[in-house]
């Protein structure tokens, strides 16, 4: 199996934008934030053709930034992302249509002043995948495939419910005939019953079109459901990556273990439940801890962890873990 998508040493820094006012204030001794945030640091992974990689982490861990780099929206500060060896971006602009994206919020990701038919067909028309004359039939076909009535093509986004909008967003992405789909929290804003409908649609279309996917979510059970492999991120780095079944059954990194433990499980018995929260709080990405970023919260932390940052190391079972004590 060869890798279709490859990320090599991806890094993304965000420099604070100093206005003239900030500079003047700083010159007079005011505290102006000048530190650089490293949202993603040195992340490498590969996604094989036809595989779905799930990307999990808490807010601020950099999973969305990573997703936006893979999707070709945000240029990396360092490293590269490629499809079949071809770079996704050149000179700050995306150069491929082989990767498409489904965003979290279907209310924000559709232009409120465009009819949804136009939203679905504009990319394919711009890239010559369909002629303007053939666009209505093309749009009708895609609306049918995502479970919507073709007659709704002339409506505006506000005339749809959240679930229907997400169907439109999926149609827009797939109408570009991509091989790779980046899904950034596609069901996070949906109700439970609608979430199930959209996940089913995703599973159906993924199988029918043979898609390769990067599926980003904070919801561990959703990621478990759709992913072949899973990567867990903490403070801008992948701490564990491997087969989903293996990681969920036997997590090796203490953070993965703690994360899985802290998820409330559906309890069907009346027994009282002991929550096992992770101690402490997420450190500020402005000043990540020295050594292993998780060490201040880790029950197994040693002096080594406080001093040296562990690197992702392959384990006998094929998972890769960044921990001195895995």
């Amino acid at each position, binding site marked *: 199996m060869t890798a279709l998508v490859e990320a090599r040493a991806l890094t993304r820094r965000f420099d604070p934008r100093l206005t003239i006012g900030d500079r003047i204030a700083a010159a007079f001794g005011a505290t102006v934030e000048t530190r650089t945030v490293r949202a993603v640091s040195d992340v490498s992974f590969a996604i094989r053709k036809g595989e779905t990689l799930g990307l999990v982490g808490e807010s601020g861990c950099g999973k969305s930034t990573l997703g936006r780099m893979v999707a070709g929206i945000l240029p990396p500060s360092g490293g590269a992302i490629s499809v079949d060896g071809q770079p996704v971006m050149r000179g700050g602009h995306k150069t491929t249509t082989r990767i498409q994206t489904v965003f979290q*919020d279907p209310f*924000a*990701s559709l232009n409120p*002043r*465009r009819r949804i038919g136009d939203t679905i067909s*504009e990319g394919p028309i711009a890239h010559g995948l369909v002629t303007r004359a053939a666009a209505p039939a093309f749009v009708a076909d895609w609306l049918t495939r995502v479970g919507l009535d073709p007659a709704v093509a002339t409506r505006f986004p506000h005339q749809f419910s959240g679930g229907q909008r997400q169907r439109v967003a999926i149609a827009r992405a797939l109408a570009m005939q991509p091989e790779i789909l980046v899904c950034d929290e596609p069901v996070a804003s949906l109700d439970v019953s609608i979430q199930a409908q959209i996940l089913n649609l995703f599973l159906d279309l993924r199988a029918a079109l043979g898609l390769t996917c990067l599926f980003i979510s904070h919801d561990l059970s959703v990621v478990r459901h759709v992913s072949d492999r899973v990567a867990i991120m903490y403070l801008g780095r992948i701490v564990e990556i491997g087969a989903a079944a293996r990681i969920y059954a036997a997590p090796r990194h203490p953070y993965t273990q703690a994360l899985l433990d802290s998820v409330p499980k559906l309890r069907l018995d009346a027994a009282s439940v002991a929550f096992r929260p992770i101690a402490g709080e997420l450190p500020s990405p402005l000043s990540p801890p020295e050594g292993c970023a998780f060490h201040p919260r880790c029950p197994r932390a040693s002096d080594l962890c406080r001093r040296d940052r562990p690197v992702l190391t392959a384990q006998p079972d094929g998972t890769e873990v960044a921990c001195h004590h895995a």
Partner: protein
Amino acid sequence: MNAFWREYAENKVALAAALIVLIIVSAALSAPWIAPQDPYDLAGLNLMDARRPPGFVGSNGYPHLLGTDAQGRDLFSAILYGLRISLQMGVAAGLVALSIGALLGILAAQAGGWIETAIMRVVDLQLSFPAILLALVLVAVLGQGKSQLVIALVAAQYAYFARTAYGAASAERRKDYVEAAAATPLGTLHIVFRHILPNVLPPLIVVATVQVANAISLEATLSFLGLGLPPTEPSLGMLIANGFQYMMSGRYWISVYPGLALIVLIVGINLVGDQLRDQTNPRLRR
């Protein structure tokens, strides 16, 4: 769209203002047909009829509803024609300022970097500078005439549009739907004209209504000072100026009626603009 107008109509004051503006605009447009006299036709004026009070029946045989001015012009006619010119100037200046301001604002938001800094610093500088002063200087340099006046008004006002367009465009281009277009990928120009511009336009149109009123009052001020239009095309400002010297001698109507017309028009447009602003402000939406 229907719901929009139904909501608009719920504010009775704004509805009345819209009606008044509509009446004034249609009266000004149809001035050649409804005015009893052509105020530009100097041959039709009779000095015998000069400075007569409202209701006076002059040598032409019809009553001067609002009196006559120092040249014996029917004031009602002069006001209708004056409104025409004022509106012409205001709308022309507003539209040109809207286009230039929108272009600069969106360019600044989209380009970023030094282009953004350069454009927005100039805009900020101009916003902190009194518009009337800038217009005065420009008119003094460019000389009198309709197009010169429009240039002066645009120069004094485009900054408001640029500021609004910049704010709206900066907000829009961060939204997911613009990112989605960039991720397709679609070209930058395509994104700007098909996605950002249509979403920046509504707040700009609100600013435009208020700015048309401002342009009209700015033009009236310049004309009042004798710097606006040539005397052959008297706008409201010049009518007010012409009657000013007679205020103290009891012939109030020569200044007061054009002044009233100006006030009603400007207040009316502002009330319409306020309601449009409230209605398009998502924070006030129920």
